[in-house]
């Protein structure tokens, strides 16, 4: 234990700490939260912060440069996938650390949905924006809180059935337009040795698409006021003939064995891969996921088609579920004017078009746009005729109804609980109301 040795060693430790500190300082500003205190000064100058989901981040990126040069504002965008964003945002809002522009869920579907946050006064009123007149009816109702517009749809997404053209051709199957035709197609495909419907239900995300798609045709067009009546306690899932019918459709496919074997263990990407390789014929998915499906096949976009999944034997009754992807302005934003300017920028028709084309999604606003991709053409007539509904869960009073549906839904699929038990559990969460 010579003094020199100790000194050297101690110096070594000091050097390591100093080096770490230096790296830290270089990485910098991560140690304290600097409130830059840029209160909106009316001209909307300075920095606009945004916290968006991964898809929005990708879609916005090409449009930001134009915005920055046009307005002289700087954008600070951070992103996370939607699940994580939802968990973060709630606490950020409570703690006052949330960004100026934030991604919010439609309706009441999560603790950070427009309806929930709007009622708590966390969101700015955007009713006077020029684009408010361009909202389509299906999004307007979801962006509205007590008569004020509180969210801007950057895009819309549809739940569609994607199918492998070659598999359909080889089995001699035509695109089904009614429920009976869908069942017949499944029989034919199963006889040809392919899985009729890929069911990547691990985690429940893809299972919920089935619920929303069936409800879109069987519940809401028949009983548009059902959620108001359920909130008033006049009816329940269990008592609703429409909801029972929607779940009965899914059970019918499940009982006939038309879903993938082992569906509860199959993650989404494997479901898409099965369709891409032709092991399965079709999959019910959101349109935003289509590019990923194409990526799994050498045939690319050409190899696949889409259709609106029928739920009744009246082909004209089929509705398609649509979901807006919302941005909202934080009521406590440090640069609210800058945030509004960005929304105005995104609302310009050429930017709506650019975003939709870049992401392969439907335009958020009802403005005149030309879509490059023809993939979604089969469902366009439904959009034009207004045969659309929001996802069912958007109007449910809290996120726990959906959580219960996802989780207990898995028990229902493997036969350990009945439809009545599943609906009863959802009713119990529904009855708890909006927190």
């Amino acid at each position, binding site marked *: 234990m010579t003094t020199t040795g100790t000194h050297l060693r101690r110096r070594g430790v000091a050097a390591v700490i100093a080096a770490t500190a230096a790296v830290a300082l270089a990485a910098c500003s991560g140690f304290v939260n600097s409130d830059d205190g840029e209160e909106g000064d009316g001209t909307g100058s300075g920095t606009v912060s945004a916290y968006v989901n991964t898809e929005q981040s990708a879609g916005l990126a090409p449009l930001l440069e134009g915005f920055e040069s046009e307005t002289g504002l700087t954008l600070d965008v951070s992103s996370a996938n939607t699940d994580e964003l939802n968990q973060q945002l709630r606490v950020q809002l409570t703690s006052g650390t949330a960004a100026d522009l934030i991604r919010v869920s439609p309706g009441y579907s999560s603790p950070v949905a427009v309806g929930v946050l709007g009622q708590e006064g966390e969101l700015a009123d955007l009713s006077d924006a020029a684009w408010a007149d361009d909202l389509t009816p299906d999004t307007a109702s979801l962006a509205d809180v007590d008569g004020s517009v509180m969210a801007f749809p950057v895009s819309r997404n549809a739940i569609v059935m994607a199918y492998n053209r070659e598999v359909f051709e080889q089995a001699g199957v035509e695109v089904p337009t009614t429920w009976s035709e869908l069942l017949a197609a499944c029989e034919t495909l199963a006889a040809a040795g392919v899985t009729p419907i890929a069911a990547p239900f691990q985690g429940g995300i893809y299972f919920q698409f089935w619920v929303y798609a069936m409800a879109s045709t069987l519940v809401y067009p028949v009983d548009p006021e059902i959620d108001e009546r359920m909130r008033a306690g006049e009816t329940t899932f269990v008592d609703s003939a429409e909801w029972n019918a929607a779940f009965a459709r899914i059970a019918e496919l499940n009982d006939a064995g038309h879903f993938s074997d082992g569906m*509860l*263990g*199959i993650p989404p990407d*494997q479901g898409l891969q099965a369709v891409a390789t032709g092991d399965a014929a079709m999959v019910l998915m959101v349109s935003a996921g289509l590019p990923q499906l194409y990526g799994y096949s050498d045939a690319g976009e050409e190899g696949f088609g889409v259709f609106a999944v029928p739920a009744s034997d009246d082909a004209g009754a089929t509705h398609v579920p649509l979901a807006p992807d919302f941005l909202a302005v934080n009521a406590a934003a440090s640069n609210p004017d800058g945030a509004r300017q960005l929304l105005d920028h995104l609302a310009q028709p050429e930017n709506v078009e650019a975003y939709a084309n870049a992401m392969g999604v439907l335009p958020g606003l009802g403005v005149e746009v030309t879509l490059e991709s023809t993939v979604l053409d089969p469902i366009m007539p439904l959009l034009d005729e207004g045969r659309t509904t929001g996802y069912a869960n958007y109007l449910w009073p809290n996120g726990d109804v959906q*959580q219960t549906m996802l989780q207990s839904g*898995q028990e229902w699929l493997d036969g350990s609980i009945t439809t009545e038990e599943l609906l009863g559990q959802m009713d119990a969460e529904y009855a708890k109301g909006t927190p």
Partner: protein
Amino acid sequence: MRVPYLFVVPALLAYGAVVLYPTVAGGYYAFTDWAGRRVAPSVVGLDNFVELLGAPAARAALRNTLVIAASTTVVQTVVGLALALALHSSLRSRHLLRTLFFAPALLPPVIVGFLWQYILTPGGPLNGALAAVGLSSLQQNWLGDASIALASVIGVIVWQNAGLTMVIYLAGLQGVPVELLEAAEIDGANRWQRLRRVTVPLLIPATTIAMSLTLIGSLKLFDQVYVMTGGGPGYATETLSVVMYKEAFVSGRYGYAAAIALVLTMIVFAFALLQLRGLRRFQVDA
């Protein structure tokens, strides 16, 4: 020389702020309806605990947490001991093998979760490998079948941590005198008898350490389950820490979540006390 109490103050401050105060505060919230808003919570007595006993997720979580803790502890101890005995030998590859068997214990649990989630999918590598070696009959829907998902999760935990138990036993095996084993051999004890009568009894301290570490760790288990199954399918792999997280940060029901955490804390303490008593008794007997 008297060391001034000032020496412990910085550590106590950090520990108090990060562990002691929040734990006590959490205990209080367990009896309130706090929802994480800017509104003060009101005290609701035992309501949260009553709800917990009736909720399918929490009930399944309670059961699964105990099952995971018990089976992980037993299986991991047996596997770890077997590995240690096999590698406390003259095998030429023993150093390399020890290094390899221990490696998973160093990996971030989140990453282990992702890796195994992929491996265990129905069309995934494990079923593929089973088919490739002619064992197609053993193929399973490892995480998708509610009747075996929990077993799969336990298997993954053991895979990750068996090396840790092995290392503890390897250290313990150094304390087994060779002379004792040789004496037993001269007395005519065969290999199995020497193991049972000499080695294993001398490894009891190591066993206690290994088992308590595994037990407490597996009661608190979160990362792997959250990533691999999120508690599914249905509620088949729900654990107390996963339900607690979902209630707090997905649903925003902090009071209820605190009640779940308080139950978990009580369970951990109960097991720790039991273990302490068991250990004492052993020391008295020995």
